[in-house]
């Protein structure tokens, strides 16, 4: 027991070695508050295309909220209740908007070559989030417990069985599809979206292609670059 005799310097050193302090320092170094929640953006961030990222997140929140109501009410509720059908319709249109916004966002980022400047991981997490969202929607269609679900599961099983996936992802198992849709996939997509957004905040918004150096004092203009 050395607590009573511990000197301030030793206390600081001990604090510095703590995993918690290290994590805090790392977090603040990589993503300080003014980067996480900035009140200014580069002047070039002035296009409607930038809106589709935040619209995707907004639609995702609508899906989560309506999905939560559907989960509490049970999977058969929406077949027999007008309130349930409306909630299902909100969930349905939220999904349609979410995927539409994501596709526009993805195309926008492609034409901006938004992976430049050590932003490749941001692109990769975005694409994985998009693919995971398609998987989430797919399991949602299978969990509708109506004719669409019957037909989709009957058709989809063949493609998945022929590549071996059907052995552990059985689309005709309603319970498995419902659990994956409602419990696993929201966590997966949510995690990827948060990761993606944190990467965007950390790296900043990618500047225009062929951005000239007069915008950034440390970088030489292309003409000066050629002369040097």
């Amino acid at each position, binding site marked *: 027991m050395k607590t009573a005799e511990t000197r301030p310097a030793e206390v600081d050193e001990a604090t510095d070695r703590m995993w918690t302090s290290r994590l805090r320092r790392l977090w603040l170094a990589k993503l300080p508050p003014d980067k996480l929640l900035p009140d200014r953006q580069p002047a070039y961030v002035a296009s409607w295309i930038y809106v589709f990222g935040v619209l995707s997140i907004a639609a995702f929140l609508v899906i989560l909220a309506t999905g939560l109501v559907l989960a509490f009410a049970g999977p058969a509720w929406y077949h027999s209740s007008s309130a349930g059908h409306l909630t299902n319709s909100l969930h349905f*249109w939220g999904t349609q908007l979410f995927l539409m916004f994501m596709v526009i966002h993805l195309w926008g980022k492609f034409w901006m070559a938004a*992976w430049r400047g050590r932003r490749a991981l941001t692109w990769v997490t975005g694409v994985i989030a998009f693919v995971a969202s398609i998987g989430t929607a797919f399991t949602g269609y299978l969990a509708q417990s109506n004719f669409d679900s019957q037909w989709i599961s009957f058709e989809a099983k063949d493609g998945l069985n*022929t590549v071996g996936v059907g052995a552990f992802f059985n689309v005709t198992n309603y319970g498995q599809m419902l659990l994956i849709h409602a419990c696993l996939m929201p966590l997966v997509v949510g995690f990827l979206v948060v990761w993606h957004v944190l990467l965007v905040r950390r790296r900043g918004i990618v500047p225009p292609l062929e951005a000239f150096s007069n915008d950034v004092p440390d970088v030489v203009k292309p003409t000066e670059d050629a002369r040097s």
Partner: protein
Amino acid sequence: MSRRTPTRADVATQEWTGPSRHYDIVKEGVIALVVVSLLTVGLAILFGSPDEPSLTFKGWATSAPDNFYATTVAELAGTSESAGYGPPYNSAADGLAVGPLNPQQWFGVTHAVDPPNDFVITPLRAQQAPPSAGAALKLWDTATSEQQTTWATNYDTAITAAEGDLTHVADGQYGPVPALALALTDMASAGSLDGILMAQGNFYQTDYTKQILFMGDGSYLDDAATAAHLQGNTWGMMNETGSYPGQAWLWLYSVWYQIPQTNSDGTWLTDHADPGIFYVMMILTLLLLLVPFIPGVRSIPKWIPIHRLIWRDYYRGQRTS
């Protein structure tokens, strides 16, 4: 030692220190949430959502009794699609191989389905059978499996020869098979088969593998899907019932099923369309994921200057500066 000369690429790498402007991302997020919520409510109220009731065995047996009857015989004879499917349901076939790859076999039978017993005999045993069905079941149980197969196959062949018209099936040695098929058709028509297939001896049940396979062996499910424009060759993968957008994001997956090479009966490409298209889509998805690392592909945005529209204010500012 010369100082490294910064390049254009460094502009993207470095912290932006050029012109900036106020940008309230929290306010933007709240406005986006309100707008999307209102848009969703409006679309939901205006258009609702698709919810076509599920098909039932009762519906099948009452609207297409001959097809249900013939399918029951095919299940007993082992000639249905389910009976000859292979992994993961049974070992009746090897599965579809593409070249040396046959992943359908890798994990073996993981969801065992025994069509004659699961779809016909066990459900018939589960109810208080009429005397004719009781006697047929007793005769079936006392016969050897070879005898059972012979009866069922003979009858299945005769029905096929009569093109499904049960009034023109030739007489033959069919044993108890006609009585069993009739009993199951009656059972389904009365609505009790739906419950018995669902329960499968348990109180709780959430796995519909057997019901989906059985229903898919007949023409009832397929006809309903055709009527709803849900077949694969009519963009069924991305369509859904009614006039709703469906899974439009599967358009590229769906495209491959529209080309004649994956749509013609008896061709190798059509037979292997499912695994082939799956692999193609996996490769395309991987390419999309790796766009930043693929020379040429990652330069497309530079060659096609759509970015000039996105950042038109910035480029306009450059010209005037």
